[in-house]
């Protein structure tokens, strides 16, 4: 069976769901951030698979922007984690409830 | 069949073997050159003039006891030297040792492959090599190696930025990312890029010294600092693998500098017909000669200059090299557009 974009979309959906499970189930905030990176990678796979099928480079340009935004988000998110760790000595997301009612 | 499987496999075998032999003899070359710089003779006992010293070193290191710290992470502890060594070896897939030559009745290209993103491939592989150092310090489960490895990796990723910016200036000059096209661009432009981009070349040399943890930037692995740096807990063949990885990185950086800034396989004045008698020296020999000059330069700098302190090192990387590299890039862009 030739590899159609359907295969790539199924791979992308499975990777996306694994990332979503990571975000929902784990309590270590660094693992949650890494699951978000998995989600962004799933989206990238989808974009590039379609860029290859339609012979249009615009999908890859979009993927470059996704990677740039992921880098920016990772940097700022990890800065926030470090600042929080310095105050509370924990990276458990259940303990990050300072502003809850 | 022959062209797709046998010839590339032969090329890979030749390049890998030559690299590994070269790396082990680099240890001897370094000890000899530093010794001569200090008015002494270096290793002289094993073999004539000490030529068999690397073999003696290899035998000693293989026979040493293999110690793993008790609470260390076994898998990561074993994998870290391998992660350090592999990027240094796989860069050779894109380095061109010569053009297409006629060997045994078929056209053979003297490079393993020519990817059209070759230069970016080299940069990305170098950035993966940082993991070996971080993981070595972490897996040792000891304070000194951890601190030293964090310092070393911070140094590496800082100087990576400066080196990548100088490579972008070279890409601007050549118009392509493929290593073979860069050498051909130097042939067409009748000048080596090292003379057209002197600032980029100087920044590349300084940045590569820091990238390969060589003196004067070798604070993370110096013995007087932090008791031996990130490889304190390593002994025997794993320790040897770290050092071989460092020398392999040095050879890689020399090869890349040769290709980008000094014409690769081209002889001096490649377009001047009067110097055609120089063509009796084959192209790959010119490449090896130029790389050797760079290696000698690296060892010479180690024998001569004192060590940078860590904060001086980081200040140099971020506050001096990166702005100068960006300025060089802007000036190159302006000149290129105006001369178009």
């Amino acid at each position: 069976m030739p590899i159609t974009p359907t295969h790539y979309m199924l791979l992308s959906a499975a990777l996306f769901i694994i990332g979503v499970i990571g975000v929902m189930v784990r309590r270590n905030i660094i693992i949650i951030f890494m699951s978000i990176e998995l989600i962004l990678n799933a989206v990238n796979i989808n974009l590039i698979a379609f860029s290859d099928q339609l012979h249009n480079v615009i999908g890859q340009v979009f993927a470059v922007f996704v990677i740039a935004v992921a880098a920016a988000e990772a940097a700022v998110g990890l800065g926030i984690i470090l600042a929080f760790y310095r105050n509370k000595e924990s990276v458990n997301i259940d303990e990050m409830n300072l502003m809850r009612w | 069949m022959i062209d797709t499987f046998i010839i590339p496999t032969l090329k890979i075998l030749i390049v890998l073997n030559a690299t590994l032999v070269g790396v082990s003899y680099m240890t001897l070359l370094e000890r000899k050159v530093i010794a001569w710089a200090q008015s002494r003779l270096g290793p002289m006992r094993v073999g004539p003039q000490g030529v068999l010293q690397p073999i003696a070193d290899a035998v000693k290191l293989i026979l040493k006891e293999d110690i793993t710290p008790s609470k260390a992470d076994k898998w990561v502890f074993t994998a870290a030297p391998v992660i350090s060594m592999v990027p240094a070896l796989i860069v050779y897939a894109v380095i061109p040792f010569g053009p297409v030559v006629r060997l045994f009745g078929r056209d053979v290209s003297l490079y393993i492959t020519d990817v059209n993103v070759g230069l970016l491939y080299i940069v990305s592989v170098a950035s993966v090599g940082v993991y070996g150092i971080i993981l070595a310090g972490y897996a040792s489960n000891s304070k000194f190696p951890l601190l030293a490895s964090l310092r070393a990796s911070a140094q590496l990723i800082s100087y990576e930025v400066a080196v990548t910016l100088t490579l972008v200036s070279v890409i601007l000059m050549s118009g392509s990312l493929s290593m073979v096209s860069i050498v051909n661009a130097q042939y067409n432009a009748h000048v080596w890029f090292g003379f057209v981009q002197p600032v980029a070349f100087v920044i590349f040399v300084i940045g590569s010294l820091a990238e390969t943890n060589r003196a004067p930037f070798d604070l993370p692995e110096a013995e007087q600092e932090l008791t031996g740096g990130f490889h304190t807990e390593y002994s025997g063949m794993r320790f040897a693998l770290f050092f071989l990885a460092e020398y392999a990185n040095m050879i890689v950086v020399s090869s890349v500098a040769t290709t980008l800034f000094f014409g690769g396989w081209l002889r001096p004045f490649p377009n001047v017909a009067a110097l055609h008698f120089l063509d009796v020296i084959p192209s790959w020999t010119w490449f090896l000669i130029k790389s050797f000059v760079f290696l000698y330069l690296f060892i010479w700098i180690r024998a001569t200059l004192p060590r940078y302190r860590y904060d001086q090192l980081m200040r140099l990387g971020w506050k001096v090299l990166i702005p100068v590299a960006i300025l060089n890039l802007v000036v190159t862009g302006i000149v290129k557009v105006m001369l178009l």
Partner: protein
Amino acid sequence: MAHAIAFYTLAAFILGFAILVVTTKDTVHSVLFLVLDFLFVAALYVMLNAPFLAVIQVLVYAGGIVVLYLFVVMLVNLKRPPEAHSDPHRMTKFGFGLAGAVLIELGAIVVSGYMKAPAVTSPAQNLPVSGNTEQVGWLLYTNYLIPFEIASMLLLVAMIGAIVLAKREL
């Protein structure tokens, strides 16, 4: 045939390492599995005729972002694992079930939508340059220059933000 073998192998590795990322207890091992995952995704991009994206994936994701994660993991390396006590309010099994249901639904949409839709064609892209990197660069600097500049400003803001957030004293 070789294409299919390559795709299935890469897909198996990518999904396998992704599951390992999400389920490993030790954070450092999780980060290492993430690096391997990204390297296999880069190999997938090479298969999809996107060599520039593949190298950018290795350079930025595997060589930059995950190094950052590794640094932070080592700086917050706690003696007791952070998930020692399980939270009774968290509905873990329900989360798994819901995610599985969404996956089945996504799969059904993908497969059925692709069976019914006509073959998609798009007009041939006429760019004055040839070669993958050159085409991406052309689009970035002509049609999509404004998003490019905004992305660079975003990265500048992120850089300043990260430094300010992680500094000890302002």
